[in-house]
């Protein structure tokens, strides 16, 4: 406090005659939030709801469970070449149905529904092993719990422009989002139109940077777009500038739903074609940018998740659901004895859509795991892998499945060579065709989704989930080469990050995963929302809490999808749409 007035201090004895000195005191107000420690006099109001909230917030242990609805289309037929008395032949759904296969091997048909089921009732494949009830739940599939432990920016990828002319782009995951670009004219404007196989994530206020890295290359006649040279004629003076960073001018190509896949920039057609080596089309990759003046802190990073398993193969329980019928009708047929090669009548189920209850047997302590961005994990994953104990699927070398991303599994009547287990084998080892895979174990690492991370937005965006491919063993079942695809990793949200970003100047006040933004001089992070707290838009999680454990539930539609040569686009589109709706 300050003032401009004079203050006189007069001693007590000198104020007036007869007055005396006396002590003066100053009252100091000391605030304290401590309660007195009085033994025997400590009261606390007990409240069950508060106690529940306290314990729930304190617990970090998770028990995961859920339901798997199996959805597939048993669409790939072939020729069974095993003996007339083999299990494989005996379980084959013969075609034409009204004739069967009285003449014996080779017989045309479809595999039985047991090929897809999680708990087959017997040995149905070309192996000669003995069926065991107790392990049947792992004869086709095995499940684990995993989390994203790290990421890989050097995962090689391939996007085909044309399968018949073998034109494609090779790139690494760190190069960004691939595109097919064309120089064209739309509504009187010369444009470069970029078509992406995944959502580009751009708006018309954003910028993107065309990449020019030595990890990118093209094959065939397609050209690689690495930059664009703009030529400007100013009063007869020709000025050229080479650019890699552009602002998006508009989205889409006029078709419904394509705004998220297509973006355009307006430029002279000659400049565009020149950048494409004189062609009207080319390929390349780009990275999304928030602020072109601050590339280092606002340019997106791209990578592939690396999942680490945190359970063993015996740490889950799988049961059939009772009283639940599949969404599609069951299809099967009774073959009379005269229509089978071994002279025995049989009933074969071709399609039946069963559901299963899964239950992770291991208590998972969230405190023990940090994700690839050094954050406490927010997602766990139910990871499902094919086990091939019936010896139906082809193993190349010692690897069972191939892998790829959405653009590698498009329904264009061709199987992308990228996804074969010879070219890109998943981490599933099978040394003996009669014994199934060597079960992965705790700590094993598998590839996951293709992801964008923007350091300014502080969040990841899933561009494409990974898929595994399964090809039939041609020595036992001759097909046209069509394959099946399934998604191995299924996300179980256990916590959510806030949609808003928290800022703090002092380092001591920040969590360990906060990022320091040099341009603004602040630490920034997204707060982890407490359980049961939701932000606008439904961002948040809530799940049962009992036994001092959290019980998040995951119900999935496990889609096994045919990809290949002779399947009608209509049918496959239907099943894709179904999957999209349910997800």
């Amino acid at each position: 406090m300050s003032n401009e007035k004079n203050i006189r201090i007069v001693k007590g004895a000198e104020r007036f005659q007869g007055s005396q000195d006396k002590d003066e005191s100053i009252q100091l107000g000391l605030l304290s939030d401590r309660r007195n420690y009085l033994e025997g006099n400590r009261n606390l109001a007990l409240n069950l709801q508060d106690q529940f909230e306290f314990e729930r917030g304190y617990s970090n242990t998770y028990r995961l469970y859920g339901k798997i609805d199996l959805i597939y289309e048993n669409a790939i037929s072939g020729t069974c070449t095993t003996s007339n008395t083999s299990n494989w032949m005996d379980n084959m759904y013969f075609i034409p149905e009204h004739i069967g296969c009285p003449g014996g091997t080779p017989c045309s048909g479809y595999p039985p529904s047991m090929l897809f089921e999680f708990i087959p009732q017997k040995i149905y494949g070309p192996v000669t092993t003995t069926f065991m009830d107790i392990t049947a739940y792992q004869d086709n599939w095995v499940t684990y719990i995993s989390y994203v432990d790290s990421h890989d920016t050097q995962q090689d990828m391939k996007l085909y422009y044309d399968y018949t002319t073998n034109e494609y782009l090779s790139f690494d995951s760190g190069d960004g989002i691939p595109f097919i670009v064309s120089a064209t004219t739309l509504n009187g404007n010369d444009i470069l139109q970029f078509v992406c196989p995944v959502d580009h994530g751009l708006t018309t206020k954003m910028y993107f940077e065309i990449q020019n890295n030595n990890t990118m290359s093209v094959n065939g006649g397609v050209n690689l777009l690495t930059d664009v040279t703009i030529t400007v004629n100013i009063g007869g003076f020709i000025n050229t500038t080479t650019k890699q960073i552009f602002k998006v001018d508009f989205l889409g190509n006029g078709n419904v739903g394509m705004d998220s896949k297509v973006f355009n920039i307006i430029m002279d057609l000659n400049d565009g074609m020149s950048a494409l080596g004189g062609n009207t089309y080319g390929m390349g990759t780009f990275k999304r940018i928030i602020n072109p003046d601050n590339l280092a802190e606002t340019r997106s990073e791209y990578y592939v998740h690396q999942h680490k398993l945190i359970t063993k193969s015996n740490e889950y329980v799988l049961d059939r659901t009772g009283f639940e019928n599949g969404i599609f009708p069951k299809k099967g047929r009774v073959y009379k004895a005269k229509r089978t090669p071994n002279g025995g009548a049989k009933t074969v189920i071709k399609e039946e859509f069963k559901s299963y209850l899964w239950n992770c047997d291991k208590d998972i302590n969230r405190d023990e795991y940090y994700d690839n961005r050094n954050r406490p994990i927010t997602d766990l994953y139910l990871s499902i892998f094919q086990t091939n104990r019936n010896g139906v699927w082809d193993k190349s070398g010692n690897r069972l499945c191939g892998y790829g991303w959405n653009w590698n599994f498009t329904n264009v009547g061709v199987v992308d060579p990228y996804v074969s287990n010879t070219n890109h084998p998943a981490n599933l080892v099978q040394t003996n065709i009669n014994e199934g895979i060597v079960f992965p174990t705790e700590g094993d690492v598998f590839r996951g989704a293709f992801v964008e991370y923007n350091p300014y937005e502080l969040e990841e965006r899933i561009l494409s989930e990974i898929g595994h491919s399964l090809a039939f063993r041609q020595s036992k079942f001759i097909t046209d080469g069509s394959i099946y695809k399934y998604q191995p990793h299924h996300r179980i949200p256990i916590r959510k990050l806030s949609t808003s970003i928290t800022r703090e100047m002092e380092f001591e006040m920040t969590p360990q995963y906060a990022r320091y933004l040099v341009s603004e001089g602040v630490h920034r992070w997204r707060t982890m929302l407490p359980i049961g707290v939701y932000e606008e838009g439904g961002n948040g999680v809530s799940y049962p809490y009992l036994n001092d454990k959290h019980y998040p539930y995951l119900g999935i539609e496990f889609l096994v999808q045919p990809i290949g040569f002779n399947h009608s686009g209509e049918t496959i589109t239907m099943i894709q749409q179904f999957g999209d709706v349910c997800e």
Partner: protein
Amino acid sequence: MSVNRIQIKAKLGDKNVTIPLGQSFDELGREDSVKTWEIVEQQDAINIIRDYETTKYSYSNSGTAPYEYNVFYEFNFLTGNTYTPDFNPQGFMDFEMYRLKKSFTKSFFKFDFYDSPLQEDQKIMFTMTMPLTNCKKEKDVLVKKFEDPLEYWAQKSAGCDNCVGGNPVYDIYWPKVQLGPSKGNNEGYYIQWYKNRDLYSGDTFYMSCKFYNAKTGKVVRMLNKPSWNLSPVIDNPEASEWYYYWVKLSTNTNGIPKYVYTVREFDNNGVGGEKGMFDNPPATQIRFYEYKTP
């Protein structure tokens, strides 16, 4: 008035008075300790956290293919002084079993699991029931014309393809059971019990059996060996010797299945050999015998 004039010229800016406060706290951490004590007391008072999570325990079996992990039971009833694995002594007629009459399908075996074989201080921990339709339907019997004339004449008029000596036959249930993890014959196979031992540390139980007869309304107590009343030598039976099989739950950390139980003989001599692994020889089954009232 003579006064000592002291003049303080105010300046811009705050004035500070430093007051030294001597402190000698000895409560370092005591507040925290009290807080912890509060939480503990609160926990004890209103919400003791216990883990009630259960899982299914499969029968652990050293049998051979295709019967690994299958468990075999046999139940014997008295006809006079002779034990036979047959439901007829319990009043069920063949056609009632063949036609699944309610008196048959509503009957069941009930297994009680105790923490101790000593009746004076034992507690029942859990029970399991097994319907009679879990039994094998493989006993060939002649169709009796006056018991089941419909079936008798139906087979006769159809050409009697399956007749024996000109008499129609059919399969009926008999009290032999094979349970496994597969669909259809697993009711009574799995034991549901706690995953960990925090709530109850015991992992050994003593299994007894009773037969609930829905036709007669009687409960028949079963023994683990033929009744002593058939032998005049033994006249002082002890419950711990006659009623129980020894069941132990265990965890197989790396194996499949992970949670298993084993069944062994039990009597006054203690725990005996493993039971239930095979159908043959019969001695390897889990066998129960009707208790004959003295």
